[in-house]
């Protein structure tokens, strides 16, 4: 390849400015007109634009995302606009797990994936049994109610889903790859005869991929009609709220369930490993009454954890240490008593959805991290909590 040859004389003639007495040339102006040569930059104004406004001392955001983000937040707060898709070209349906009517992080990611697949012209429809709040905020354009079953009856739910699938005929139907979601997806695949692309590990609008043969090969395909999505594959939807308009569904015939009785047995906090526990109560150096702490954990039905200081002192078993060199939690709620919140400890808590902290120090990092913070002596709060739980049980 050869470069375009430049004729310096012609360039110079082009830069000539009409003048009466002597020839004049505007050599700098050529760049501004998009002429040959690199555009000129003014480093001083560029650097000034990187400055983060509102900070006490000069701070510069070199990735230059600050100003846009600030402007966005302001506009979102002033106009709470809801996106309405009136006549969607197609539907992408989602069946969240929502155990007990609460959306999990995995469910939110599922809506993020559906939004990616729906693009600008499609609509995301949530197929849910029972009332679930906040579906619009996480990206649902439509909400269709399935007949809710009193008990655990996956065969009945799958039949209801099959009739909804026929009625709505969505372009894609997404399930979470969880015990319940994966089970429903496979039942539906057999009921409808539609092939299933399970446990998606990577998803974009045009392709999906999954691991197969003991993670030796990755299978890549165009998005299938039925898919199950693994955890932490797609970020949850973070755009403006969507309408969440309710969509009528024809009522499905209900057959007699084959499972005659179902009872949920909550996890035994004494035997649940910290890494999978749903609710963890942990003690730090601020807890001196370990006996009361143990009784509190039992009364709350929570798995006991501890900071490194207590484990090093031998007051709590090493297996209960939370943090970078202990267990990394996936709990829904973390109740920290007398924990300062050292970075090594907070790493273990980063995955927790809700944090409650009790500490005597208002400026402790744990208080900053917590959704509910109590500035009070843990030795006073623990007996009060136990007493409150006991009096509730007695009444």
């Amino acid at each position, binding site marked *: 390849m050869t470069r375009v040859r430049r004729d310096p004389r012609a360039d110079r003639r082009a830069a000539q400015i009409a003048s009466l007495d002597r020839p004049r040339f505007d050599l700098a102006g050529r760049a501004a007109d998009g002429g040959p040569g690199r555009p000129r930059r003014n480093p001083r104004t560029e650097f000034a634009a990187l400055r983060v406004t509102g900070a006490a001392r000069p*701070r510069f*955001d070199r990735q230059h995302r*600050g100003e846009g*983000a*600030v402007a*966005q937040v302001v506009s979102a707060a002033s106009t709470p606009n809801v996106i309405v898709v009136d006549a969607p070209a197609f539907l992408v349906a989602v069946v969240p797990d929502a155990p007990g009517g*609460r959306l999990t992080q995995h469910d939110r990611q599922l809506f993020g994936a559906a939004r990616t697949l729906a693009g600008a012209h499609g609509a995301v429809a949530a197929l849910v049994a029972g009332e679930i709040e906040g579906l619009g905020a996480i990206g649902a354009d439509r909400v269709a109610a399935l007949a809710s079953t009193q008990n655990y009856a996956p065969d009945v739910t799958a039949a209801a889903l099959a009739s909804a699938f026929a009625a709505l005929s969505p372009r894609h139907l997404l399930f979470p790859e969880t*015990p*319940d979601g994966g*089970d429903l997806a496979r*039942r539906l695949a*057999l009921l409808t005869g539609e*092939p299933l*692309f399970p446990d998606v590990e*990577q998803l974009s609008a045009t392709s999906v991929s999954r691991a197969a*043969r*003991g*993670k030796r*090969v*990755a*299978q*890549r*395909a165009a998005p*299938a009609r039925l898919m199950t999505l693994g955890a*932490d594959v797609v*970020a949850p939807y*973070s755009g403006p709220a969507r309408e969440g308009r309710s969509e009528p569904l024809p009522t499905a015939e209900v057959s007699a369930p084959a*499972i005659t009785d*179902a*009872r*949920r*047995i*909550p*996890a035994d906090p004494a035997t*649940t490993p910290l890494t*999978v526990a749903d*609710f963890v109560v942990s003690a730090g150096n601020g807890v001196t009454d370990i006996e009361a702490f143990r009784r509190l954990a039992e009364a*709350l*039905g929570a798995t006991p954890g501890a900071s490194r200081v207590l484990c090093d002192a031998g007051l709590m078993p090493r297996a209960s240490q939370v943090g970078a060199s202990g267990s990394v939690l*996936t709990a829904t*709620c973390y*109740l920290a008593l007398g924990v300062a919140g050292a970075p090594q400890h*907070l790493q273990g808590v*980063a995955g*927790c959805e*809700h*944090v409650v902290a*009790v500490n005597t120090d*208002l400026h402790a990092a744990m208080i*900053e*991290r917590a*959704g509910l*913070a*109590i*500035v*009070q002596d843990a030795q006073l*709060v623990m007996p*009060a*909590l136990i007493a409150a739980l006991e009096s*509730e049980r007695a009444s």
Partner: protein
Amino acid sequence: MKIVVLLSAGAHPVSSAPVLPRLEAQALRLALALGETTGLHAGPSAAPAADALGHGLGLLTHLATREGDDPIPALVAALKAETPDLVLAGRRGQGGEETGLAPYAVAAALGVTIVADAVALAPGAAPGSLVVEQALPKGARRRLVVRLPALVTVHPGAPAPGAYAYGVARRGRVDTIWGVAGSAAEPNPIAVEERPYRPRPKLMRSAPGTGSAAERLAAATGGMASSGANVLVQPTPDEAARAILEHLRRIGVLAPAVANKPAA
């Protein structure tokens, strides 16, 4: 109770050598504790599934099929002839497509109930029923009473497989019969392109794609969660306890108090 365990020829997770998948050995342990058990394998060779004999299985029926045939029709035909009360299988294959659809296809063809992810089995109080304990996320369980016949898939959280013993394996028997010749397995109804697997970085939870550098750092360490934090400074212990319990109930980790409490 007549029990059949479906045994497959899996690939070892590290060496890819053909082995009995661990899940199926776990299923075998559950079955042997429950009643009279036989094994069923459809495929060109019984060698990998015959490992189950060493775990205490007495009889393995091998349905010989050609290489590359779909094993489902052979399994379904054999199970229809045998009419067991309970069929056990692993929740996923190991080393194949690993879609977990095979047990569902067998159950649908037999017209029996399928229950997924069992970690414990016990005979039910009523005759012809089974108590299945299902594994749920976060250590929870669900106890179901299922009418037989049923097909139950086994979860990795089930008790570890029984030990392998060479002498026991020698005493076991393998019966090889010709299985119903199914059509060649359909390649895959979804057109897939295969390439070597490459692990993907996991998505960082709560890390936003936008925002200033300070906001992104705060989100990565979980600092963003506290926006609009509720701080109670020096409340009385009782106030503190009430606030904590109320908060725990709102987020759903603590069972609600007895209903008549506010009236009291």
